[in-house]
């Protein structure tokens, strides 16, 4: 058990690419926590996809021993938080397990949207904050100007900001010292009944479910019988350890400490992040204020390209959800696509990450249907229904009105692109809430329908601003609007996987863009194919894909008979990536690409 005043718990908050992972690596390295030869870049981003995309998806932690200038050795617990907006929820919960934050700002870029969003969460959690200006080795670095910006935009005192280069190691000793001197030690009572916060849980192939805890009061020991206060389940602790970042067994964890335990728990779903853990006997009475579980906001259907893969998909989804409680799934059947799953995600990136993992780690070919948000249907009989799938939209005569989720989006953008951003937000049915300037950057706050953001808003934002805008959002409320279901008919047959909910005023433009895109994506057939967008029975946009004109082998003589026969058969097999809708074959990519629109 470590003395409270020798513990510092902290996280690092930063906009993506401002150097959070590099700084974490440097802290680990400089304290000798990991031997130099074991050091791989971005220690804490352990999943392949995290490394590849350079983003942190799940919070991770490391315990660092630091001999400070005062001659005492401190235990520093760093919890790494995800940087992407989709995972904002995980950020907020990991922040409640620590007392302070390093705010990392790229000294050549300045404050960005995620800097703001994350720093506000840190302030909400009551953190002490140490501003750090990174990348001062860059010629474009302007530490003085950025300090001013931190004061102007965030309202933090930046006079003691530490200028560093995480890349070269410059300033790292100062950061370590500031963690000890400027961040508060945790509080807690070792003699009180055990009260521990369940910060995170994940599935490990060898250990089963692993639970990360922050001890608030009391002491947790190996062999203890503990109770989860929300689920009331009781478990015996098999293993107690700290992460350095590899697991090192420990006999006990006292107040202020962060560690992990295993307890023969079968599924991550049996654990609730934010739950309070106490002893089975002589437990504490009042739990910590809990978190609401993360709510999936984006839904889509995942179907195997090859129907025979359904069982494999089911197994893969089960295994993945062992490790990611924030993604939900439910079996779905589609007239067009057969058996599959309707899955819910925290956002589009989360969707893409899960789909990538299913395809890559489980070797599946998947069709992803149009992503959709959850609409609330207010029925005439007073019932309120969640609509996860546009295909399930009931007849309008039963529906009184429809509510859709709205978000509050914060966008930071150099002022020369402001016009483009305003136009983009306006086009997406946005309502401007605020517009202010910080130097040559503008900060706009918009109220936007989430449905308009899930498709390609982020891509559009990046392309109209050449990558210079940053964006973050929180879900604000459900609000009524004039929404209709638009269906897509290919060769006169509705393709349910392409139907979507749209605002009535935007339906024509959406429909037109959809049918034009589909005309490009569907290969020509032997017959001409009408492609239509419709609201109910009314066609609002139409294109015709003309018939294929030429598909013949020029030469076929005696020696070719065998080979050409095989070729004809091979072309049949090559159709795997296609899906048959009536007489028409639609390539798998059409289901996603059709939604990436340019307007």
């Amino acid at each position, binding site marked *: 058990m470590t003395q409270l005043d020798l513990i510092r718990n902290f996280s690092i908050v930063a906009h993506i690419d401002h150097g959070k992972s590099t700084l974490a690596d440097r802290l680990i390295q400089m304290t000798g926590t990991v031997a130099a030869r074991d050091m791989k870049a971005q220690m804490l981003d352990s999943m392949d996809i995290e490394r590849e995309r350079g983003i942190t998806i799940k919070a991770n932690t490391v315990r660092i021993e630091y001999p400070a200038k005062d001659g005492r050795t401190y235990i520093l617990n760093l919890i790494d938080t995800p940087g992407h907006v989709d995972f904002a929820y995980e950020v907020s919960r990991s922040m409640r397990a620590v007392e302070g934050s390093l705010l990392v700002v790229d000294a050549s870029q300045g404050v960005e949207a995620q800097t703001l969003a994350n720093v506000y969460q840190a302030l909400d959690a009551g953190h002490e904050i140490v501003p750090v200006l990174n990348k001062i080795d860059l010629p474009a670095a302007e530490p003085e100007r950025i300090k001013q910006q931190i004061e102007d935009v965030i309202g933090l005192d930046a006079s003691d900001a530490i200028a560093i280069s995480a890349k070269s190691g410059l300033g790292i000793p100062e950061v370590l010292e500031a963690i000890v001197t400027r961040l508060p030690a945790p509080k807690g009572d070792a003699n009180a009944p055990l009260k521990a916060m369940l910060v995170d849980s994940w599935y490990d192939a060898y250990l089963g479910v692993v639970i990360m805890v922050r001890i608030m009061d009391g002491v947790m020991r190996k062999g203890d019988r503990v109770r989860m206060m929300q689920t009331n389940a009781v478990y015996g602790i098999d293993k107690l350890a700290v992460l350095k970042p590899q697991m090192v067994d420990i006999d006990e964890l006292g107040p202020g400490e962060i560690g992990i335990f295993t307890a023969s728990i079968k599924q991550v779903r049996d654990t609730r992040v934010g739950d309070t853990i106490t002893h089975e006997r002589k437990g504490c009475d009042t739990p910590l204020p809990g978190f609401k579980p993360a709510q999936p906001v984006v839904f889509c259907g995942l179907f195997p390209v090859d129907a025979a893969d359904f069982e494999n998909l089911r197994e893969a989804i089960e295994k993945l959800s062992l490790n990611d409680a924030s993604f939900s799934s439910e079996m779905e059947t589609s007239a067009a696509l057969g058996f599959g799953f309707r899955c819910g995600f925290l956002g589009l990136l989360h969707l893409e990450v899960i789909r990538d993992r299913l395809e890559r780690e489980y070797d599946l070919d998947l069709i992803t249907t149009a992503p959709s948000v959850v609409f609330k249907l207010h029925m005439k009989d007073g019932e309120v229904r969640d609509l996860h799938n546009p295909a399930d939209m009931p007849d309008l005569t039963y529906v009184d009105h429809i509510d859709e989720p709205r978000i509050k989006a914060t966008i930071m953008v150099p002022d020369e692109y402001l016009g483009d951003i305003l136009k983009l937000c306006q086009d997406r049915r946005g309502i401007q809430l605020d517009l202010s300037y910080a130097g040559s950057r503008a900060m706009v706050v918009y109220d936007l329908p989430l449905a308009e953001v899930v498709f390609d808003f982020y891509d559009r934002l990046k392309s109209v601003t050449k990558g210079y805008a940053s964006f973050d959002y929180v879900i604000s409320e459900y609000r009524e609007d004039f929404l209709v279901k638009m269906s897509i008919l290919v060769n006169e047959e509705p393709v349910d996987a392409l139907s979507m909910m749209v605002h009535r005023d935007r339906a024509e433009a959406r429909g037109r863009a959809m049918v034009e895109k589909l005309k490009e994506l569907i290969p020509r057939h032997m017959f001409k194919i009408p492609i239509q967008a419709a609201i109910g029975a009314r066609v609002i946009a139409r294109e015709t894909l003309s018939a294929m*004109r*030429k*598909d013949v082998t*020029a*030469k*076929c003589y*005696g*020696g070719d*008979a065998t080979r050409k026969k095989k070729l*004809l058969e091979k072309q049949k097999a090559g159709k795997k990536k296609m899906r048959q809708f009536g007489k028409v074959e639609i390539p798998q990519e059409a289901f996603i690409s059709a939604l990436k629109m340019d307007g």
Partner: protein
Amino acid sequence: MTPDSTGGKDWRSAGFGLYLHWPFCQSKCPYCDFNSHVATSIDQGDWQTAYLREIDRIAAETKGRVLNTVFFGGGTPSLMQPSLVAAILERIGQSWSPANDLEVTLEANPGSVEIDRFEGYAAAGVNRVSLGIQALDDKSLRRLGRLHSSDEARRAIGIAQDVFDRVSIDLIYARQDQSLGDWERELSTALGLGTDHISLYQLTIEDGTVFQRMHARKLLGGLPDEDLSADMFELTQGMCDAAGLPGYEVSNHARPGAESRHNLIYWRMGDYAGIGPGAHGRLTLGGARLATEAPRSPGRWLEDVMGGRAGEMPRARLSDTEQAVEYLMMAMRLTEGASLAWYRSLAGEDLPAAAVAELADLGLIEATDESMRATAQGRMMLNGVLRALLAGRQSAR
């Protein structure tokens, strides 16, 4: 198989032909995926011995048949010594009963070396040549990697017309940077040269060729898109019809009666023996239809035959269904189309009525109870037509 159940058809009604493959060329054309090789020295004496042995072997199995056609294909058969061609034809004459109208075709390249041998081939018994002209202007010929010039091409055609009874020319169109107008002028010149048979192939990027590698690296610009190549194909049909050489097969056009009888054997499911490296054959022996295939490598083939072994790989017996598919695939290339009675007797079932009706509706085929043919538009879409017909079969489900 009784004559009435097949509409009176079997291999006999289509005839019996002999294909001989000569696998050498002076240089390898970048678009060509034929079994052709460039060799520094070729001992034509050894090759003669080998061909004669193979003729004897096949003749022993097909004794007493009337032989309708002989075809020297390649490679470049016009690199064979006339004496070699003469020896082969002499042995053939001793091995089968030649039909009265025996057709003996030799593929020739229009280079000057080859032209000088024309008289010798005619004397040996060749009565038809197929000239690989490919294009009528020098720039296109160079882009196709051909060794001859357009002047040589014209001279070769003239001499061939004097020397042989029948002359055909091959052209490749839908080439890089060729416009519809370019092709119209070129084809009109070609039709004016007075041959009564002409093969017109749209350039195909074949696997394993230099063109395919260039194409993959986007170095083969200016190829026509689907619409232009369809327009070119339609233009070709119209111009050949008007010139009195209607298309009788996807890429072949002839004055009626001047069709390649040898190639018709392939398309009408006749029997043919294949001799020489990589040659394929189809032989009906003892009631079974066999697919034969020789080793592709010239060295390997020669070694096998000179070593006293058969120049052939193990034969495959074609099931009735395989024969049915092959028949449809080949016969539908012809303007005359396919006999449904024959198809039925092989497949043991009719073609799927729904697919037939739908294709007819689309104007791609015309069908009666007994026969079916692809329309001009359907022939242009033949792969799709065949896939639709074959995929809908009960046996394919």
